[in-house]
């Protein structure tokens, strides 16, 4: 039983480059999450019901009504990227629940006692939210194709969609994690989650264009990261779609928001254990 070699020094981290260490830690957390997700994909499937309903019911009806000015795009083409973004938001925003669950089980405490950077632990979780976002993307692409949405299939725009979904998932899951660190219990989080998602969704350009909003709502929408995600997806996902805010700005806003949120969440993370 005890053929263990004498204790080797485990101070390898001393010689390791900080960035390499950081990447290793992010990968470790993301990889563990990915394995869990792969074993239990039911959540991915149940989460796809809502966006399908939006496209199938809301999208179909409003396409007939022609009540929303969407320029040269049909309403369904217009809203498909919005529904993808919504799906990213709704999947990622409940990440905090999972983190509170893990906290109640002691899993988070154990991770926080490891020498890993807190920001790496946070970003690892964010990356795993990205996988969920990507699996939603696959499902939504299939549904939109079936419904006849004119989806773009060039390689570069498609990679752009994947990148935008990864970034958006990371932004909203990290936001969710920060909220979880503040509220700390599942019950309170459920309440807050509901309160946050709907305003984020309706104060965005997901199902109607910015120009159709009253001035005050436009101001709110322009401060909402979801708007930039939708804007990027709209230009990358559908034929004839264009970015109203500028694709470069969309990605910069998402990236900047992510960095800010990771810094905040990494600071708050240890307080989750108190």
């Amino acid at each position: 039983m005890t053929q263990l070699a004498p204790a080797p020094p485990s101070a390898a981290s001393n010689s390791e480059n900080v960035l390499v260490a950081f990447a290793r830690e992010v990968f470790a957390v993301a990889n563990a999450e990915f394995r869990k997700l792969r074993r239990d994909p039911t959540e991915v499937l149940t989460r796809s019901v809502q966006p399908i309903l939006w496209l199938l019911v809301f999208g179909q009806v409003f396409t007939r009504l022609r009540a929303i000015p969407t320029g040269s795009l049909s309403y369904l083409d217009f809203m498909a990227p919005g529904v993808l973004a919504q799906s990213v938001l709704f999947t990622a925003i409940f990440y905090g629940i999972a983190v509170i669950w893990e906290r109640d089980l002691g899993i988070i405490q154990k991770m926080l006692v490891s020498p890993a950077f807190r920001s790496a632990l946070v970003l690892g979780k964010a990356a795993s939210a990205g996988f969920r976002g990507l699996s939603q993307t696959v499902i939504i692409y299939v549904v939109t194709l079936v419904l006849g949405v004119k989806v773009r299939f060039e390689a570069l725009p498609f990679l752009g969609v994947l990148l935008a979904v990864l970034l958006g998932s990371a932004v909203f899951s990290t936001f969710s994690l920060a909220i979880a660190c503040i509220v700390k219990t599942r019950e309170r989080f459920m309440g807050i989650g509901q309160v946050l998602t709907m305003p984020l969704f309706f104060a965005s350009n997901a199902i109607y264009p910015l120009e159709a909003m009253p001035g005050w709502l436009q101001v709110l929408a322009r401060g909402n990261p979801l708007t930039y995600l939708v804007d990027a997806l709209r230009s990358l996902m559908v034929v004839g779609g264009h970015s109203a805010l500028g694709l470069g700005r969309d990605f910069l806003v998402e990236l900047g928001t992510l960095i800010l949120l990771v810094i905040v969440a990494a600071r708050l993370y240890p307080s989750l254990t108190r």
Partner: protein
Amino acid sequence: MTVLSPMDQTPAVITRALTRRFDHLIAVDRVDLRIDRGAFHGLLGSNGAGKTTLIRMLTTLLPPSSGDAQVAGFDVVGEPREVRRRLGYVPQMLSADSGLTGRENLMLSAQLYAIPHERREQEVAEGLEFMGLTASADVLVRTYSGGMIRRLEIAQAMLHHPAVLLLDEPTVGLDPRAKHVVWDRLRELRSHFGTSILMTTHDMEEAGALCQVISIMHNGQIAASGSPEALRSGLGREATLDDVFVRYTGGSIEEGGTYRDAARARAAVRRLE
């Protein structure tokens, strides 16, 4: 284990007037604790005595209100990352990830504790072997028994060969057989790696069986400290550790504790069943 510490003779753990307040409650009250290198030190106390709060300050998760603490020669407030590198921690709750296999749990720890890539698989395999988990290494942890999860967690905490191992009630809720297996593994870890161990417990038998030094905690303070023999003989020839406990805390170890402690203990037991 000398590699990881700045000085050879630094104690594994030393605290000076370590204090933690929660609003009006003083959970840990000016505690001076010294744990020598290689020692197996037991921290006894009823629920709510302050054991877990003390442990959590040593893990760097909870900042002290005043006083200071060093683990393996590093300050828990000033150099938390250095402390965490040298620390193994087994929390009170069964906290292995049940959605992963035993091997995956260990791989995650190996990555987070910076065990070099080329050594990871071997270290993980050795940890599994040492804890008698090789046969169930690739099975999901949710199918493990409580005793197996505990052993897996100790393997996780020992993977990087920490200088100091902190165990928070490691055998709570385990059946006697599982408990003895865990004890054997802990004894072996100590003799093999010279790991210094601080263990909280409210199991007198456990404290007597494993610890060379016992500190009894009461109302946030260390009420008494010494070897089990010395503590017993201080009370007379026939005295048991239970008697010692009653003498220094004025009550049985089963009494006391907050609602939250009780709820936690129950939750841990539920998971084990």
